[in-house]
């Protein structure tokens, strides 16, 4: 088992390498560069643009740029010395082993080309909000998917099944942003029941994630939770409504499959109650593919939250990405892409391992 996990872990390295190459080349193919935000500003002279490009290393050959960004090359090095860190050892090693301190390998994603802040600080603040939105949606969506999927499978071809199927497909067909804006117009502009956006009430609650916020949450946990809950309702409803279709259908399929298995028939023949058959025998068997499927869907959830975040002013990764696109902020774009790619690869790995652990039929020698 350990050998299998180690092998799979090593197997992700080439994938991540190709991912980093792809991210780099995608942004290179895209015309322009960070300097494009000055394209319309005649006060920024050609000489200034040249200096700006030099400052961002954009005057270097592309392989060198990539090599520096990854952290294998030392930006201070010359000739073959680029691979050697200032401590005299190969640059790609961790800092404490004598390597360099630049590049993605050393956790340095550089600075935002528009604001000068470190990319890590910009992205770091976005992780928790996105995780909360995605996490709450995921939990709700799994519960609902299981409920509706099992019901649909048990009542196959019945009225409930048809209703659930139609509901699923209709939700799946809605453009997320349209649904979100309609909800805002109805629930905040017309009925004034729910906030139109944001993650906390700007009037009464401190900025989320700051010390003041945790102090506030510690002293008035109910108020803090209620406030967060109020702000979560519309985005979560949007996310769940448009995403539930996939899993609900999947649960239904897995459940039908397992209801047709021999052991279920045996259980029925033995006189086990139908309730027991469904919940103890069939559902348990159907959960395995469902759980692994959800691990594989995690990344879609993160990416899919972009539309929801942009509509509901949710200060997460998706909104940060769009802001960076608007700003021609290449370092931030690359940082977010790398981090999402790592999350995706990790989720795939997790799904594989989970599957290997739970399913005895998989040999992992």
């Amino acid at each position, binding site marked *: 088992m350990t050998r299998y996990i180690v092998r799979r872990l090593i197997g992700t390295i080439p994938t991540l390498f190709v991912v980093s190459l792809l991210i780099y080349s995608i942004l290179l193919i895209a015309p322009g560069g960070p300097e494009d935000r000055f394209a319309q500003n005649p006060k920024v002279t050609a000489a200034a643009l040249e200096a700006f490009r030099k400052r961002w290393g954009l005057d270097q050959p592309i392989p060198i740029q990539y090599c520096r960004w990854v952290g294998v090359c030392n930006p201070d090095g010359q000739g073959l010395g680029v691979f050697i860190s200032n401590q005299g050892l190969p640059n790609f090693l961790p800092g404490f082993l004598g390597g360099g301190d630049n590049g993605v390998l050393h956790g340095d994603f550089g600075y935002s080309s528009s604001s000068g802040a470190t990319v890590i*600080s910009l992205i770091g603040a976005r992780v928790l909000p996105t995780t909360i939105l995605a996490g709450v949606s995921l939990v709700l969506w799994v519960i609902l998917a299981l409920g509706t999927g099992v019901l649909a499978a048990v009542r196959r071809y019945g009225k409930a099944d048809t209703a659930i199927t139609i509901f699923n497909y209709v939700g799946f067909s809605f453009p997320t942003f349209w649904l979100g*804006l309609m909800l805002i117009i109805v629930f905040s502009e017309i009925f004034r029941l729910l906030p139109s956006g944001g993650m906390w009430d700007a009037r009464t609650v401190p900025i989320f994630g700051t010390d003041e916020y945790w102090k506030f949450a510690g002293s008035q946990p109910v108020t803090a939770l209620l406030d967060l809950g109020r702000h979560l309702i519309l985005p979560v409803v949007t996310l769940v409504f448009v995403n539930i279709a996939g899993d609900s259908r999947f649960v239904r399929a897995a459940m039908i499959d397992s209801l047709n298995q021999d052991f279920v028939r045996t259980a029925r023949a033995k006189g086990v109650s139908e309730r027991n058959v469904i919940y103890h025998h069939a559902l348990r068997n159907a959960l395995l593919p469902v759980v692994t499927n959800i691990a594989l869907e995690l990344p879609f959830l993160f990416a899919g939250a972009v539309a929801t975040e942009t509509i509901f002013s949710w200060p997460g990764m998706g909104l940060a990405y769009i802001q960076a696109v608007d700003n021609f902020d290449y370092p931030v774009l690359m940082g977010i892409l790398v981090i999402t790619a790592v999350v995706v690869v990790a989720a795939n790995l997790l799904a594989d391992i989970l599957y290997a652990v739970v399913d005895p039929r998989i040999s992992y020698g």
Partner: protein
Amino acid sequence: MRNRLGSLIAVSALVFAACGSSTTTAAPSVAPPASTAPGTSVASTAPESQAPIPIDITATKYKAEAVGNRGGTLVLGMSGDPSTAWTNIYDTFANDGEAFGPSLWGLWNNTNDLKYYGQLATNVPTVTNKGVVLTGSKMDVTVNMVPGANWSDGQPITCDDVIFMWKWQLDPGQDAAGNVQGKTGYQDISSIDGAGTTTCVIHFSKVYEPFLGLFGPLLPAHYLKTVPVADAIKKLYVDTDLKSAVWSGPYMPTAWAHDAQINYVPNTQFWTTIKKSAAPFDAVTLKLYSNTDTEIAGFVNGEIDAALEFNQNNIAAMGKVAPASIDKVASVTYEQHSWNYASLTKKFGAAGAKALMEALHYAYDKDAINTTITGGAVTPTCNFTNDQAWFNDPNIPCYKHDADKAASVLAAAGFTKGSDGSLSINGTKVELLGCARADRQYRVDTLNLVASQIKPLGIKLTVKAVPPTTVFKGWGLIPADTPCNLTHGNFDVAEFAWVATPDPGSLYTLYSSQFDPSKGDHSGQNYIRVNNPDLDALLAITQTTVDLPTIKDALSKIQKLYVDPANAFPEIALYNWTTVLLKAPTLHNVANNGSASVQTWNLEDWWKDK
């Protein structure tokens, strides 16, 4: 979404363009001779020019109401996240000014009626008040700083800051850091006297007319000195450590959660040493929405006291807002159709182009454009000035919409209508290409409406929507034959907005024949390729004098020329933008500002009922 934000990207860049760039005027071939008299030929077109009347550019009507209640938190709303706290230095979006303008003051600023007032300076120097002294081609400006004023960390604000910031702006390290202000203006300063005092004399080596735009904001020397210039953007005014930064304005930011919120507290040094009163609010909070529609919904829902940064295109979405809460004011930004005179000349000959241009001026129905496109939210304009600008001449006649006149002008010039109804001259059909940014529906709509207005004349206008960068990209950055690129002149008409300033020097790079982008270093913005010696001479005046009556006189003549059928000027101004903000009825002293300064320009005066 992000319509407002997006428009600001395009527009904010033009702000810089419009601020009058002397970087680009530095080339000797370009700089007009200082001896050019306000042209003889020009004078003949304006025989009624009257004796100069005294002009007071500080005579504002704005008067703050006394603070009636103190305490509480002011919650503002805005759409889009600012890019950096360095207002006007390294920023990208214009909304950065809304967020951080009230935290970092400049020497001067504009009021809501486009007048000038001192922020950290107590005087607005002009020739009349002897604040500006001209000696030959040189210019000395005396600045009196607010005495006893302190930065937020208690250090005094003096001429040392002015001197240091001047040198800091000119440091070569700024290029690499991406300083959007550039060296414009600062490089014309030869020296500054008054170190250690609050009376500074800035010596300019040449006349720099828009000098009131310099030092906005003024930055603290002792803070800037702590790091090398090239590292400033990374280490100073850092978003995660705003508390350690040094500020001068009434409220200073303490925390910034991107895309969510910025918190401010009163700057006690400001209130004790500059304003000498207590702050009306205990705290200010700026809530950041990701798009204008949800910002409006948030205001309706009572989440914020005031919603900032809207324009005429957002009014349609304000159906649920109480009309009394909608505060509209005409902006200095004006929407216009740039007609490419070079392309028209090439197609229809010199005489044909002139007649066609004149006919177009008559064919435009600007009232219809206003009602249809903006729902009557703007006022159609005749020319490039805002009515409130000090140099505006209100007595200039306008083209009147007159389709018959347009037809007769065309017929007189030899244009004929074919059996299929299409207009042509010497066998060339009048088929034109209209360009707009793909993401601005109202512009595509406006061009389509104009196409329908000129269709009865037999003119065929095809509207093309292209990416914003295609429209504005510079000479060397885009293939020369890219359709709709303004720099290369691959268009017949293009719609976009110019951000004018309360200062007329900006027109120079737009209308001077020296700034035809096909010429020189291609950095000019005379996209319309107007080439008029009279105009060149008049524009030169704005570059060689700071004598306000002389400038006003020249501007009056330019305005006249702009609407004179004899000139058939190839730019058609449609309307001034409307700057819009939403305010709760409990808020006082909110004075929406349509100038280049921001809607929060007088935040220190705002207060709220209990």
